[in-house]
């Protein structure tokens, strides 16, 4: 299992309970993933649940994991950063780097692999978004949950999506003044889907609890608004917030300034699919395609949780559970009995329906790209501006890779994870898998040391064949320049 968040843990526990020996590989120093990120033990937190929801579920996962680790059925490798998964003679082989400095190579071989790599935040650019003090909504939450630290005293939480509610509530509970929660979602869209929301009473209750928390902390909610710019010299000093019109454009004259030293901003999550891409797993848009037992189309590889489509912790738990049971049956050469996991399958259906509903109501402003001026940095790593990206389109770039080759947008440290959605939106190119062979930077020394490192590390498989890359497949002919 790669990932020790809700999906990876549920998969590990379901498989181990059926006698399968499981290795859980995770980059965190503790299990839990982003959702159950907690302060390090050295903080001596006696009430970590104050920053969490569904803490009882976490306690059950944590205790079950400890039990299986004691029994020797689960090996939990913490602080292991996976950079490549490949199939060697049909068996998944995982290459990781151990330790915070990510230098020491570790290889794990298995008969089956569950990818539970979670998601990361999408942030669409606007002028000033690179100023210190502007952080992702999830980043502000992660620093608070894990490091018990706030980026400043006065925060604006902005963007769109259900994540903004716990982020605003958490920052306020921890002592920050949350000056506003700015969401571009249109309130009447919630009403339009009222009937479908009614089918999710537990979620409605959760929403009502957040609304009460926001009210208790006197947080102003600006719905159908957006942050148009962040301002400051070397640090955030204020943001401009404006109302949106029915088309999703800024309504002129509605701009107002909100002084703040922190802007926590996010526009939803994206599945973390780089390992799946290298294995050649089929993707549907940005998510890994799975069947009803969570199998990808690559033999021996399952996927569960946010990687198969953003849907939250409950969906991750259900998918992980089903994946773990399927692995246990398949490794014994048996067809799994789907009746045994029907409660989890029902939770999965309900949670997926709710995720679709959220996707229908939470959306960035339709014309967000118009906020990007020609001198707004779009690619944070390579400092490529909106103007440069637009110029690439003028030069004929019709896909993200060509834009990258012309401008360097997406060529830096983060390998386009931060800017790809923005570059796609700005250029009209399709947001497609980048198919990079390595999921993180790997020291050259590790590649030289590791006898198992693949000699041909190009991603193989269906994606290449499906999209058809005639040049790459063409055999060299006499006429080719050497």
């Amino acid at each position, binding site marked *: 299992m790669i990932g020790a968040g809700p999906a990876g843990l549920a998969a590990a526990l379901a498989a181990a309970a059926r006698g399968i020996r499981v290795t859980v590989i995770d980059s965190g120093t503790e299990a839990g993933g982003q959702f159950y990120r907690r302060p390090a033990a050295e*903080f001596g937190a006696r009430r970590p649940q104050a920053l969490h929801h569904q803490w009882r579920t976490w306690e059950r996962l944590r205790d079950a994991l400890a039990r299986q680790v004691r029994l020797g059925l689960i090996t939990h490798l913490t602080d292991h950063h996976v950079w490549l998964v490949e199939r060697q003679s049909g068996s998944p082989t995982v290459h990781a780097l151990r330790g915070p400095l990510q230098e020491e190579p570790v290889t794990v071989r298995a008969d089956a692999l569950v990818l539970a790599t979670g998601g990361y935040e999408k942030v669409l650019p606007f002028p000033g978004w690179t100023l*210190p003090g502007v952080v*992702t909504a999830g980043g502000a939450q992660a620093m608070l949950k894990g490091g018990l630290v706030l980026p400043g005293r006065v925060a604006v939480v902005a963007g769109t999506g259900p994540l903004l509610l716990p982020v605003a509530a958490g920052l306020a509970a921890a002592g920050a003044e949350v000056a506003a929660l700015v969401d571009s979602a249109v309130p009447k869209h919630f009403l339009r889907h009222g009937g479908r929301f009614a089918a999710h009473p537990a979620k409605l209750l959760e929403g009502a609890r957040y609304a009460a928390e926001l009210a208790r902390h006197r947080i102003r909610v600006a719905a159908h608004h957006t942050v148009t710019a962040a301002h400051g010299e070397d640090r955030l000093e204020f943001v401009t917030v404006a109302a949106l019109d029915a088309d999703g454009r800024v309504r002129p004259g509605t701009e107002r300034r909100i002084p703040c030293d922190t802007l926590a901003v996010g526009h939803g999550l994206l599945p973390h699919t780089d390992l799946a891409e290298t294995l050649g797993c089929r993707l549907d848009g940005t998510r890994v395609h799975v069947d009803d037992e969570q199998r990808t189309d690559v033999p021996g590889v399952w996927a569960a949780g946010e990687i198969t489509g953003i849907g939250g912790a409950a969906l991750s738990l259900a998918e992980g559970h089903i994946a773990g049971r399927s692995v246990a049956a398949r490794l014994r050469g048996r067809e799994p009995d789907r009746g045994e996991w029907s409660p989890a399958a029902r939770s999965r259906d309900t949670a997926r329906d709710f995720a679709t509903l959220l996707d229908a109501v939470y959306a960035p402003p339709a014309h967000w790209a118009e906020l990007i001026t020609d001198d707004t940095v779009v690619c944070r790593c390579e400092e490529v501006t909106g103007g440069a990206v637009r110029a690439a389109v003028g030069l004929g770039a019709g896909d993200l890779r060509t834009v990258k080759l012309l401008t360097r947008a997406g060529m830096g440290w983060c390998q386009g994870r931060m800017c790809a959605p923005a570059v796609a939106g700005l250029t009209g190119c399709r947001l497609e898998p980048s198919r990079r062979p390595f999921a993180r930077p790997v020291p050259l020394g590790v590649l030289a040391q590791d006898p198992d490192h693949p000699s041909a590390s190009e991603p193989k498989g269906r994606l290449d064949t499906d999209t058809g890359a005639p040049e790459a497949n063409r055999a060299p002919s006499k006429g080719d320049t050497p």
Partner: protein
Amino acid sequence: MNPYRLVRARPEPAFTVTFDGREIEALPGQTVAAALWSAGVTAWRTTRGEGRPRGVFCGIGVCFDCLVTVNDRANTRACLVPVRPGDTIRTQDGIGHEG
């Protein structure tokens, strides 16, 4: 209210590290980024193109904005690496290599 009171933390004794030569206090269990935020520092890198200040952005090791030089080692992700007693933390200019 503050985060420590909220979760009723009893942190272990603080230790000292330096940031650009200035002594700051850090706590066991903190990452380099958390220690810097606690000391009121939000920027510890300047970009190699425009020389603009950067600090934490994604907070989970994905974006590489928080790169910093720790004990002469450049390109350390401050949001992932635990702070240790006596660490020498320096603002990273550009890619962090001289010349």
